[in-house]
């Protein structure tokens, strides 16, 4: 499924062209070709999914935008919209196993439906343009397109109706609920609701961790030489706690705010390091206290910062709330980390000049 960015090759519509009068509909220009797909998820697909979840070449997990035949659809078959992100497209086509349908893939630049809808790339504009470019109204007799519910933040159904004359029907949140949904075309409450179970939280952690791995290794190596192996271990622990442990434990940590949840988790993981620094027999008491204080200040601040940044990956935090959190807690985190680093540097200098 290695289809690189080569969109519009057979269609003169571009994002810049006037969307109201799509030039695809002129008599000379050919409509974009109809591709064929099936419901089988191959080993290559699974490998691609694995790499996508690991954050490998984030923008490259794409399928060609346009119209696809799934099975042998006829002019009365259902039309489903999807994003040109392999995980989205593959979830849809595998869920529709045994169903003859049309799949209209929008160009979302390799981003999943919900994120793309939030950005507007999975949006009214692109949907209308894609309907026109593929000549969908000449291919199917009906005028209905089933759009995933999570595409709704980008789609205005009255607008699609007015411009493309297609009625948008919002399917369930998850593609796997489609077979059930299609029996009645009514979604249950559960099909309409987004959740964030352990499995979905954990599947996000590799990307989070990969982002921070390099700076973490650099800091850990530096601290190993400057402050010893325990400080290096503390660095790795703080990053792992913030990027892996926090997402896993999210609903079980007290309080609602991500920052306070992170501070609580940070205090817990800081405890063994604080203890270890406080009983170092080769250092004077004041240095023990200072070392312990540095660990107790820096580790919770770091974990809380990762925790706050996890808001963007969750399925429920509002912008208003996250903004409030930023103003409430970032100054505290900065103060804690700043004070901790200052103490650490003071200890380091004391050591260098032979005070301790």
């Amino acid at each position, binding site marked *: 499924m290695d289809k690189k960015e080569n969109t519009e090759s057979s269609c003169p519509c571009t994002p810049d062209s006037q969307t109201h009068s799509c030039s695809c509909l002129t008599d000379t220009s050919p409509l974009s070709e109809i591709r064929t797909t099936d419901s089988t998820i191959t080993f290559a697909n699974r490998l691609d999914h694995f790499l*996508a*979840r690991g*954050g490998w070449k*984030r*923008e490259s*997990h794409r399928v060609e935008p346009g119209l696809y035949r799934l099975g042998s659809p006829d002019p009365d078959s259902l039309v489903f919209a999807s994003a040109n*992100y392999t*995980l989205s497209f593959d979830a849809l086509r595998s869920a529709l196993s045994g169903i003859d349908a049309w799949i209209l893939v929008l160009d979302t630049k390799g981003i*999943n*439906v*919900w*994120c*793309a809808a*939030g*950005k507007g790339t999975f949006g009214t504009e692109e949907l209308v343009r894609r309907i026109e470019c593929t000549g969908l109204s000449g291919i199917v007799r009906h005028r209905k397109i089933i759009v*995933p*519910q*999570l595409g*709704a*933040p*980008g*789609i*205005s*159904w009255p607008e699609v109706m007015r411009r493309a004359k297609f009625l948008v029907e*919002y399917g369930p*949140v998850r593609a796997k609920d489609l077979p059930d949904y299609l029996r009645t075309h009514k979604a249950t*409450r559960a099909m*309409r*609701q*987004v*959740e*964030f179970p352990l499995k*979905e939280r954990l*599947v*996000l952690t590799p*990307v*989070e961790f990969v*982002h921070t791995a390099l700076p973490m290794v650099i800091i850990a190596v530096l601290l190993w030489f400057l402050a010893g192996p325990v400080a290096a271990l503390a660095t790795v622990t703080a990053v792992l706690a913030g990027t892996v442990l926090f997402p896993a434990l999210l609903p079980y940590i007290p*309080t*609602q*705010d*991500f920052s*306070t949840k992170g501070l609580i988790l940070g205090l817990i993981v800081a405890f063994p390091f604080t203890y270890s620094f406080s009983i170092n027999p080769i250092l004077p008491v004041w240095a023990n206290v200072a070392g312990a204080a540095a660990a107790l200040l820096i580790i919770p601040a770091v974990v809380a910062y990762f925790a*706050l*940044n996890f*808001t*963007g*990956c*969750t*399925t*429920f*935090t*509002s*912008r*208003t*709330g*996250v*903004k*409030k959190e*930023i103003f409430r807690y970032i100054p505290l985190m900065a103060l804690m980390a700043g004070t901790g680093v200052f103490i650490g540097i003071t200890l380091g200098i004391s050591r260098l000049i032979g005070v301790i």
Partner: protein
Amino acid sequence: MFNSGKVQQNPDGKKNPSGFFDSYTETSLKYHPERCINCKRCTQVCPHAVFAEGKDHAEFVQPSSCMECGACALNCPVQAIEVQSGVGCAWAMIGAALRGKDMDTECSCGGEDGSCCGTPEEPSSCC
């Protein structure tokens, strides 16, 4: 249940009404039930069941669950719902603030810069 002549905003007062360590009790979502034509689109698009089907108009049942995705307002044919939609992503907002840009308009989610958002989960992740 509600005074249907008034704009409704957060009438449910969900758990933890004091807002102690809870920044998520208020949102920018506003609902004008008197304009509602009961098309039920909002109940179909909301991923957090903020709206429920009612007899004459949609009921505003749990507004503090709103994540401000904007789907309801965009799909309401009579502008009965208002919300300042945006992505609740601290990474993007802090990044915007650090670059001296407006936190409210800037969204670098899912961009080339490998932000926290645009994570390859479907459909669990946002932005």
